[in-house]
């Protein structure tokens, strides 16, 4: 969810990149196995993703979101296998 943004403040964007449902995640599986080996019980499916924090030199939240969206499609996520989620903050 987005914090209410007022115009004129530098925008920080938080981007979560996660594997799409159904895409095999061997790293998540390995983490799950390691947790089980440590004795943690009841851990179901584990999925690993990426978290990217960006400072955007753009004070208009709508423009900032559009910009980060473009960055996600072109570089930050591989949309063949990954979803992205953008959160804007001051």
């Amino acid at each position, binding site marked *: 969810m987005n914090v209410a943004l007022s115009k004129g403040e530098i925008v920080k964007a938080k981007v979560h990149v996660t594997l799409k449902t159904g*895409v*095999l995640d*061997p790293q998540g599986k390995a983490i799950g196995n390691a947790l089980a080996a440590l004795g943690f019980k009841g851990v179901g499916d584990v999925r690993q993703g990426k978290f990217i924090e960006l400072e955007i030199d753009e004070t208009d939240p709508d423009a900032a979101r559009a910009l980060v969206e473009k960055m996600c499609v072109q*570089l930050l996520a*591989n949309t063949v*296998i990954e979803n992205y989620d953008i959160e804007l903050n001051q």
Partner: protein
Amino acid sequence: MKSAVIVFPGSNCDRDIAVALERASGIAPEMIWHRETALPLLDLIVLPGGFAFGDYLRGGAIAACSPIMRAVAERANQGVPLLGICNGFQVLTESGLLPGVLMRNAGLKYICRDVHVRVASNDSVFTQGYAEDQLLRIPIAHNEGNYRAQESMLDRLEDEGLIAFRYAARDGSANGDANPNGSARDIAGIFNQSRTVLGLMPHPERAVDPAHGGTDGVAMFEGLVAALAR
């Protein structure tokens, strides 16, 4: 045959491919730094193996944004043959020149060993030196070689003969154990629609000298010279 090898920070098979190309063609390829923005007239462009930009973000993702890639894509779209080996294959999928994606190996291990692959199509400048179904022994060395694409795309690759190489067992059969990395449909290499772009995970340039332990890569480079020499 005039060729060029694109060199990224972290490329490490650029010299190997240069040796293989020079042996086959008699002409040393131009080594082109990734910051360049223009290419000379060429018959073949190669994106070599390695770990461009340390595989940061995703293998090949940062390299796909390098300045030279705009010129590379332009030439590829004009039909100039473009070969991506290992990390070069990852750069090709990340730049959208080939469909799909190369994910972490299913077994989570970096694999460096000889594998067997079958020539799934010899209908290209890259594979015409081989017989269809020919069994080759070629080294692989990768951590992200697990080829994935939507089922509909995999069907299309199969239906249109765009799969170049498939992992196979030593006896040539397609048994699951022969697939080293979990690749969908045992895919080791694919072509683009016009078969002028090839991406493959195995390293043919590491199988061109008896001292390598095998020479099954030679036919790829000699085939390229036969097709492209002017």
